[in-house]
């Protein structure tokens, strides 16, 4: 719109310059022309009337129209699209909602959920709900204290030891992932707070940047959820594999028993 108006104004100025130049030339010719040149008063009046008409009708009318359009556009922008009062109201609303909900939600989120009473369970529970990846190093020993380490070679068959080891590893891995997830979740909450803070100070023109930022944050959150989902998939798969391995072992045990019975019966 601005460009169109600017171009129009340029054209108008050019036209005015041309009119002025025309008038100047006319004046010069009249001044130097001899009285017998034949240019009568009627002609002069006619030309001047024509110029007057052009200025009043063509140029003046169009200028009035432009003025009207400009006024309308300004009123539309300031009164309808971006009224300052409503912009301030929206910013105020952001602040109001933040003040009303943020703290109560954080308090709910921070409610303690631990309930173990004995020493070893309490330690493990405390570590796995700590939301601090700095505590990850202590999680595995606490897990072993509570659930015991993998039996030594002579205490269990290799198959069982392997299954115990992978089950424990996947359980510990998933618990560690939950700690990572809790911590990153808290950071994401802080980021949401900061984003909301930015929104309370934003202008309509800066809002698309913040909206895009929020979308990117959502994408990151989705990736974090996928990490958790992967851990859950591993756990469920291991559980299924574990149960299945027990069936295989039962079949193997039955075969061994059958062979032994066969040996006993086939002895003379």
């Amino acid at each position, binding site marked *: 719109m601005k460009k169109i*108006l600017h171009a129009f*104004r340029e054209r*108008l100025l050019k036209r005015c310059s041309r009119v002025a130049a025309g*008038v100047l030339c006319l004046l010069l010719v*009249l*001044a130097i022309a*001899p009285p017998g040149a034949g240019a009568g*008063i009627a002609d*002069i009046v006619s030309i*001047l009337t024509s*110029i007057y008409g052009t*200025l*009043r009708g063509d140029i*003046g009318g169009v*200028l009035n129209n*432009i*003025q009207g359009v400009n006024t309308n556009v300004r009123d539309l*922008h300031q009164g309808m699209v971006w009224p300052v009062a409503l912009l301030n109201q929206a910013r105020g609303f952001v602040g109001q909602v933040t003040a009303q909900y943020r703290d109560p939600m954080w308090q709910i989120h921070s409610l303690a959920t631990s309930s173990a009473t004995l020493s070893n369970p309490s330690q493990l529970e405390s570590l796995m709900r700590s939301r601090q*990846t700095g505590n*990850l190093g202590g999680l595995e020993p606490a897990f072993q204290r509570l659930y015991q380490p*993998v039996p030594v070679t002579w205490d269990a068959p290799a198959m069982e030891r*392997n299954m115990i*080891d992978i089950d424990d*590893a*996947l359980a*510990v*891995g998933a618990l560690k992932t939950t700690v*990572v997830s809790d911590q*990153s979740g808290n950071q*994401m909450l802080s980021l949401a707070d900061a984003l909301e803070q930015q929104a309370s100070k934003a*202008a*309509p*023109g800066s*809002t*698309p*940047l913040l*909206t*895009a*930022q929020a979308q*990117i944050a959502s*994408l*990151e959150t*989705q*990736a*974090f*959820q*996928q990490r958790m*989902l*992967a851990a859950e*998939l*591993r756990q*469920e*798969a291991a559980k*299924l*594999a574990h149960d*299945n391995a027990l*069936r*295989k072992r039962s*079949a193997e045990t039955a*075969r061994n028993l059958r062979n032994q019975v066969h040996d006993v019966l086939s002895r003379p």
Partner: protein
Amino acid sequence: MNRQTITRIWNALNSRFVFAAMLVTAILLVPSKAISQFADPCCAVITTGLNTISGLLRNVVATPLKSIQQIQQQSANFEQQIIWPQNAINQARNFAGQAQGQFRQMNQLYQIPVASATLAAPQRLEHTLLSANPQNVAQVSRDYTGLYGPVMSPQDAPQPVRDLVDMSDAEAQAAMKKAVEIDALADLEMQAADKMNQQLQSAAPGSAPILEAQTGAWLLRANAYTQSAMAELVRVRSVELANSSAQLKFSASHAANLRNATDQMLQRGVK
């Protein structure tokens, strides 16, 4: 000397040249005893006409132009101060930089090693499962069989049991493969998000919606991947449930066989 200056000088020379040419022409045309028309009564007409035009230019052209200028100035101020204030735009860009830093910290958290298996076979499987490397998907079956063993031979178990075991192994492996895939996808999504964040720091309010649309598309894609992993999870649980049910069916079948065998033995005893 730039092009604009050259043009300006040329215009000045040009207008002076025209003026000089007109002056020379006038001098040549004027006869020695010419009587100027300014002494003529029609001069009054011209003067009146020109005064009218001058007034007209002032009222009809200059006044609306001034008004237009004022309106445009107001609009420009409004847009610069209320709609697109440079300060707010810069603040939003800076925030994108801060957010990127926080995302990178969060991503590093997910790089902390969580493996803890101690024996050889479990370590191999765990390494493959936590690799987040799609190239390792093919290796899952080998490591899985190495740890949990193959399906038992036909001599060792009835066919229905072998079918159940085979199905369960297949689903467990599929879930493990899907876990590797979804980890790899999550990595790529984080990389893409990082690049988008980088781009956002130099975006304009007019280009930000394009980035927003792209991020929206990525979010949609990520949701679809999550959905796919959720489907795999549901399949694992379905197989587990079916196995529990099959166990009851096998028990019922065994009981029926035992009952029949007992009946037959008892009937033989009666005879």
